[in-house]
């Protein structure tokens, strides 16, 4: 496969996410136990989350946000330590709204 072409390089990740409607609820539907994450060397969630919600911090923890979540479930499925990511659905009516899914 050739590397990502020039034509698409101008689309930043933020621009990509701006095409998606999110109705952000007050309750965080993802909770990460950063203490567990400190002992994780593989960081699958950082690679796989399609919304790129997980970022490693300098002290070895994980910074996350829940606002722009596709609610796909990838993060908790790939997480190798049960209990590090507590994942539920956002409250009814909140979260992602796909118009052309």
């Amino acid at each position, binding site marked *: 496969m050739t590397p*990502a072409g020039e*034509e698409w390089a101008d689309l930043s990740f933020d621009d990509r996410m701006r095409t*998606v409607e999110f109705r952000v609820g007050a309750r965080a539907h993802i909770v990460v136990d950063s203490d567990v994450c400190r002992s994780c060397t593989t960081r699958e969630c950082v*690679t796989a989350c399609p919304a790129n919600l997980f970022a490693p911090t300098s002290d070895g923890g994980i910074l996350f946000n829940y606002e722009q979540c596709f609610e796909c479930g990838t993060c908790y499925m790939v997480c190798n330590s049960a209990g590090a990511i507590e994942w539920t659905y956002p409250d009814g*009516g909140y979260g992602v709204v796909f118009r*052309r899914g």
Partner: protein
Amino acid sequence: MTNAQSPEACDVVVVGAGPAGSAAALALARRGHSVVMVERGPFAGSKNVYGGVVYARVLDDVIPNWWEQVPVQRWVVRRSTMVMTGSQAVSVDVRTQAWGQPPYNGMTVYRADFDAWLAEHAVAAGAKLLTSTLATGLLWDRSGRVTGVRTDRPGGDLPAKVVIACDGVNSFLAKEVGLLPRADAAHHTLGVKEVLALPADVIEERFGLMPDEGLDVEVIGCTREIPGGGFLYTNRDTVSIGVVVSLTALSRSGMRPEELIAGFKSHPAVAPWLRGAVLKEYSAHLIPEGGYDAMPDLATDGFLVAGDAAGMTLAAGVWLEGVNFAMGAGLAAGRTAADALAAGDVSAAGLSGYRKSLESNFVLQDHKRFREAPKLVLSDRMQRQYNHLICDVAEQMFTVTNPAPKPGLLKLLARSARRNRVHFRDLIRDGIETIRVFR
């Protein structure tokens, strides 16, 4: 024990107003039962993403002439299967005008439109639809029987004689009952999709289509050696393109999902199709691809599970279908629940007709027949070597090397196999295996 069965208890609560849930609710409402559909999104379809084509033949008995009113984008008259490497592509392109006229075959849709349309049919038949309502858990009686759902509405308990869980790939209800494991990365893939705007006439010119006609392309070899595949399909004035990849392999690859789409889009066989297209929506969804052997039990006391919640997406190589399986299972679940309510037995035994019904139609017969396909299709040689082999042989076949004479096909195959480190014994073994799995 029946304190959960308050006077206002309905016969059935269906969780999720996707294709499985709406089909179940429609079947039940038609039989005169009180049904409440609980949908966590603001409208049916708002949480849903698919990857290509909806085949709605299963609706023929339920919504006669559904094609005259369904919110279709395009009727698929061209179905291509493409095998690619970084710089090559080989396609098998099937076109038939039969698919472009009643009763049609497959269509492209936006799920926000299609799912909402099917839910409206359930409502028109008498089902009640509660949107923006999350089912937070199940109600149980002391004997361990499911007696309804809890929701996040004020006073949100919904007692019911039967609960049908159509709550999607992450089904927390099936997990609560113990039918699904908490997490199961090995049996799931991640699909990411871009919807790109192009004028309808440009789409028709680029893809060789007449108005209302559509194309669906399924691709192997476009995921940078991560097991999976790609797809592209036409809507009226957008093109949807995406990749579907193994969760476990993706998370170990260090590659980001959007990079995989970008790579696919920039492939020389794909990029000219998309020139000038503007991103309208990015989306992602998990897909249960474990097939027959990864499916959970489908019924317990007072509880049925259907659609993605039961892992019913068929990912059998060239056949990639899910919405039709969800609708087929939903209809069967609704009819079984109606029978069980009429017989006054909603125990697991009373609901056992559900599985029998699915075994007698395409839902479990197709899954059972192709139960070994997911593993074969995602195997290393299929994913990393045979795409190169096929493209090399095809390229050499049509490369004219005059004055040297044409080599025979067998010689081409041997040369390409050698170059791609494919052993003949593996090729023969995989060929036999493919015939066995798809027989």
